[in-house]
């Protein structure tokens, strides 16, 4: 499988102090990658780097094989942190907001047509918000706002979807609903997803790749899934390993453990081949990393 995001030797700092140092990782087409790490470890900075908002001080980022210089023309969709609550004071309807996601399709200085409107409606349907399309964004709940914001991103037909803490500030039910939608996108629409979250317990079961960005010794490294066991075991001594297993689509165990996710089994089954493939690649990747600099340090 082709690497849609490939980061090699990337370092970044606003001043001489590096926030991120020598980060290597890759995300393949069809991945559902979850980025975890403590607060202030540089997760949002990394997202900005992936989006081309910031330029790496050292190293390179390539998206779909092209060296990243600007995001124009790349098929990245981005859902920023707290995007819903930031939008809530803005006097616009859901439909207007989703239409703005069609910018690239409509083009500079042009007017949206009927098919664009249809596209926006489809996107709203995907997040189950079609009935609220004429409502003001400010009148919706946090979870609904977040879904509208997601619809806006989806309207642009992204190949890669980057989400920064999409589950922050919304209730548990909305989180499940959001993750369900993302899972559906990942499986059915083959959208590659990279999601920054601290809510690994909820997001983990949907992910097939977990990247840990942590401070201290492994600060400079983005570790592939093997390391997560360690990081995860700290906070959740019971279920960590199983979740990782689930992440690699050995779904039986994971879903046995967590009945709540049984609904997703069908999806997992249907994509098992895909999942297995990824799993294989992942192992190789983990292997690499362990032989790499970070691995040694960590050991």
């Amino acid at each position, binding site marked *: 499988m082709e690497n849609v995001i490939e980061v090699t030797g990337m370092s970044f700092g606003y001043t001489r102090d590096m926030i991120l140092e020598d980060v290597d990782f890759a995300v393949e087409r069809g991945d559902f990658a979850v980025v975890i790490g403590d607060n202030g470890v540089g997760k949002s900075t990394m997202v900005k780097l992936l*989006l*081309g*908002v910031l330029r790496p001080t050292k190293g390179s980022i390539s998206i779909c094989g092209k060296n990243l210089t600007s*995001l*124009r*023309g790349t098929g*990245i969709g*981005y859902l*920023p942190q707290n*995007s819903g609550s*930031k*939008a809530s004071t*803005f*006097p*616009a*309807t859901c439909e*207007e*907001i989703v*239409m*703005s*996601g069609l*910018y*690239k399709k*409509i083009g*500079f*200085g*042009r*007017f*949206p047509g009927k098919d664009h409107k249809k596209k926006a409606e489809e996107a709203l349907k995907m997040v189950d918000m079609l009935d609220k399309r*004429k409502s*003001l964004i400010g009148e919706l709940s946090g979870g609904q706002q977040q879904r509208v914001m997601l619809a806006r991103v989806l309207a*642009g037909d992204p190949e890669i979807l980057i989400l920064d803490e999409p589950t922050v500030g919304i209730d548990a039910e909305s989180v499940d609903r959001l993750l369900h939608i993302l899972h559906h996108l990942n499986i059915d629409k083959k959208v590659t997803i990279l999601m920054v979250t601290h809510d690994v317990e909820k997001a983990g079961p949907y992910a097939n790749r977990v990247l840990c960005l942590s401070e201290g010794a492994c600060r400079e490294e983005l570790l592939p899934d093997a390391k997560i066991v360690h990081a995860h075991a700290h906070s959740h001594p019971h279920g960590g390993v199983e979740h990782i297993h689930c992440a690699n689509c050995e779904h039986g165990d994971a879903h046995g453990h967590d009945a709540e996710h049984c609904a997703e089994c069908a999806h997992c089954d249907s994509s098992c081949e895909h999942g297995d493939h990824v799993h294989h690649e992942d192992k190789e990747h983990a292997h690499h990393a362990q032989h790499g600099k970070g691995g040694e340090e960590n050991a």
Partner: protein
Amino acid sequence: MRNTEKEVRRMPEILQYTYMQRALFVGLLLSVIVACLGTVMVHKRLSLIGDALSHSSLAGVALGLLMGFNPIVGAMSVCIIAAFSIEVIRKKLGNHSELAVAIVMSTGIGLAGVMSGFVKSSADFNSFLFGSIVAISSFEARLVMILSVIVLLAFILLYKELFYISFDEQAASISGVPVGTVNAIFTILTAVTVSIAARTVGALIVSSLLVVPVAAAMSIARSYRTTVLWAAFVSVCSTIGGLVLSFYLGLKPGGTIVLISVAFFLIFRCIAFFRGRSTSSKGA
């Protein structure tokens, strides 16, 4: 008896005078474009940009008189520089972007104050800078007409981009909106509009109509599009209403226009309040 006769005779009177025709016409055009620009500026959290720019243009007039070039050219160029400074400072300040306006306004007032001390052959500074809506020259009327066409065209053509930038500047930039270009276009248009409008109808009218109608519109509008339309509506009604009241009751036009727009704001807030109560009671 005599009074009612007068009333009947007076009705079309307001349109019999060239200065009133001009005031109504220029007022109409300016209130529409100022409302459009205001919608953009309020959502960029630059509500007071009108005040900042008109005060800076005072510095421009002083500079023009000091250096010996046309004060209006000075006003316009200082306005544009000030507007770009606001853009630059706004970006640097992040969450405190509204400070950019205050900083530029203070600088403008300070510069104007200091420089006016050096201007010797100047006359009444303010009288040359700030116009009056009831005394608009034909040149100014034509200038406003051209400006209005440009601003309206830009606003309609870039409506989608403006919406996106106002809503989420970062996301807009990531989606490939030429944020810098669009911002620059509107920075220039706002600066030029403020300097021309200040010269034509007075600084008070411009800086208030940039904000108050938008605030009124935001209380009741059900979408971004209707926010713009309501803002334009409030702005136009205030201007026309203010002129009519000024004509018949002898009130100062600038102040009257501003107060009418504030009245609109209060009424709309009340409507929003009662509407909000009725929906919440329905919900409960």
